[in-house]
């Protein structure tokens, strides 16, 4: 046995430990690998999407220690010791949808759906920060791109969230 960690090509890598959706993980990755690709390619968690790679579209949005973060542009080395929440982690332990997810279904928001993981993560962060947001707060916080043009329903779903039971306590 060689000392230290090696990837499948025998090259040394660094183990980076953090948590994803409450579970501790340790990945062998190069320090500059964006969190997005660690989630998707290394951990097989594909709910977080690749859209642009330059933090312009928000499809890759996750929470890092509760803060909305575009994971395509954050090196995994910056995540060491932190808590990451992805779209897969919004349901509570019993599998009940987060109230924002439920609002998304009730308002029939998604069309192609590809951007919606990121939109939902952004909406959850907004609601956790301000409770019931104003239109102006929604304008400012919801800067993710949706090519299908679901914006009016995104806005409606966020405004409706207050009408749903907070049935996902402890999630996100």
């Amino acid at each position, binding site marked *: 046995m060689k000392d230290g960690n090696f990837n499948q090509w025998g090259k040394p890598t660094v183990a980076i430990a953090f948590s994803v959706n409450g579970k501790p993980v340790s990945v062998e990755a190069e320090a500059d690998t964006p969190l997005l690709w660690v989630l998707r390619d290394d951990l097989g968690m594909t709910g977080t*999407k690749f859209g642009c790679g330059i933090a312009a579209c928000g499809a890759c949005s996750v929470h890092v220690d509760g803060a909305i973060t575009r994971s395509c542009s954050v090196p995994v080395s910056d995540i060491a010791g932190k808590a990451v929440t992805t779209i897969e982690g919004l349901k509570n332990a019993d599998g009940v949808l987060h109230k924002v997810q439920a609002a998304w279904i009730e308002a029939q928001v*998604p069309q192609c759906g590809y951007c919606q993981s990121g939109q939902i993560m952004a909406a959850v962060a907004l609601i956790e920060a301000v409770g019931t947001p104003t239109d102006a707060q929604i304008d400012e916080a919801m800067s993710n791109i949706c090519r299908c043009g679901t914006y009016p329903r995104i*806005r409606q779903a966020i405004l409706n969230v207050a009408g749903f039971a907070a049935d996902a306590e402890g999630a996100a």
Partner: protein
Amino acid sequence: MADNPNPDIDLPETGDAPAAKPKRKGIKRRIFLAGSALLVGGGIFGVWWTDSSAKARATSLIGGEGKHAFGTVMTIAEDDTVTVFSPHIDFGQGSHTALGQMLADELDADWDKVRIDQAPADMAFANAALAKGFLPSMTGEFAAGLIPDAVIGMMARSMPLMITGGSSAIRFTGEVAMRRTGAAVRAALLAEAADRLGVSESELTTANSVVTHAKTGKSLRYGELAAGAAERSLASDPVLKTPDQWKLIGKPVFRRDIPAKVDGSAVYGIDFTLPDMRVATIAMAPVRGGKLDSVDEAPALAVKGVEKVVKLPDAVVVIAKGYWQAKKGLDALALKWSDGGNAAVSTPAIYAAQDKLRQTAEKPDNEGGVGDVDAAFGAAGVKLVEAQYRVPFLHHAMMEPFALTGHFKDGTLTLWGGLQDPLSTRVKAAKAAGLEVDQVVFNPMIMGGGFGRRFPDLVEIIDQVAVLAKQVPYPVKLVWSREEEVRHGTYRPQSSAGLKASLKDGQITAMRMDYAQSGNAEGEVPFIYAIPATSRRHYAYQSNQIDGPWRSVNATQIGFYTESFMDEAAAAAGADPYQFRRKHLAEGGRHQKVLDAVAKRAGWGSPLPEGVGRGIAIVESFDTIVAEVVEVTLKDDGSPRIVRAFAAVDCGTTINPLNAEAQIAGGLIMGLSSAMGEAVTLDKGAVVESNFGDYPILKLADAPPVVEVDFIDSGAKTGGIGEPGLPPASPALANALAALTGKRIRNLPVLTQAKA
């Protein structure tokens, strides 16, 4: 079907049909099929939909233990589950749910027990309904009616046709295949129940997947009847419900695909993974038409995780452990390309060449219109109005970049990904890989948008993966970066037009549009105004780019030209833009009603807040008429912000109002986005823009907070819903800005007119 020893042998005539048959009406043919039948009676022929071998093949693919297949469209399982197989891909337009609604309504199925699946990418599922729908545009209505459905089915398989586009799913597949299949299968279930219960069919009723005999209180579930019913003949021309009998059609049913799209569990093409799979990414020649000159592979191979560099004639691919490693490898390469002789191509040069073509060509490539426009322009006492317009190339910007996985093993190439036409994907991949079509398997997956970009004919990633997969022993997923996506699109064409009209007594006496672009819009985009003399002349201009269909195709630019110019003509006549349009539309016709509806909803003519302008436009595309009103204001930096937006729609019948509203509102917003800031520009033959930083998509803050959509249920033939919301948006915005600022915007996009 399980009992039939030879499903390839069908008895198309009446002789051996079981005793309790669906009633014959007029000159109709029926087919008797053991286990598998689907028949569509279009016109008096009422002949076959699928031939026997296609049916047998379809049955083998979708039938199974305890599941009984009805043609290539649906199965009923013994637990009552009805599975509807859609030949159309759903890339977010909601057609899967709508097609299921149409079939389930006619079937009287329990909606909670209906599931909608993607039809396998197999020739047996080639969409004859689609061929039938599009045929009139190829042959004319009369000739189309004379072609038997069996021949159409053969045509669909030979094309092969499993395409999604032209806003066709509901118009053709839904109306022709889904409703009739549902009704015919219901009739077969009734007949089976009547035999089993020994009662007359007329005493039976159906509801929620149960046949009930009210007199005795006996009932049979569809799942109990399925095996017997599947042995029966299906009527070619079943009686369809009238709109007052609909329980699902026209109702705001929730979409079936949405739950998996809110919890991250939906697996898109880019999400697909296999054990031992590698991920690749690509750099293509920056100038369309250029080739790879040279590359030293070493710097890429020195990057951790990179396994292989593959050279293609016009591209370089790096294969690695994951996307990030592949991208790092690709970025490490110094790539040298040729320009294919296209170094002089630029956006201004294309506009200049188009202007020159329109002015100097001996004759147009295509022409449409009525009356003598030149005579009307020369008539005494007319006022002439003229204007020139320009619109740029547009990128589709589907949010999921292209991704396709291929694995070549034991002589078979298997593909996984999202493309608009599963069957022609196989054909294209087979050609690129040097295989027979039978050696290619394609697994269609959920798509993160399409908007016209995923028609296989124009999708290079199919060829790239086919070639790549044959060179490596493991499965490989090729992912395009957003930069490659932006720079190697099949764009909405760059286009320009000159319009001219003559006015007399406030009325347009003649109108002409000369437009230069690659594609011909004549026969596609109808001219809706009742003007005595009209002319549209197409001058074909092709740059080094590949122009493709972009949501609503030619209706975007033709709509922008026509509807901007109608406002300019109204201004020249000193008339209100709404009233001016209104009096040029057929009195009491569908267009006028749609225009009136949007004007009423928007409160046209009512006072607006200070600093807000209002614009209107109406465009017909894909048999659907849409009028929109946009209200706009200017932000502190002078850029526009949409305050409110309204749409009125006549698509004949609305299958799912909840989804139709979303499609129209989404189309309107995409149209506003394109008009506001989107442009693909060329310099030295290459695309200048690279990502969302310089190709801005409208964001929530600048989009209308609410889009109010009204549907007019005219009962006219069912029109499309995915595309027609888009075309009126850009002229409505330009008209609103002109009303607000007095400045007419003739070159799009609004934010960067200097580029034009």
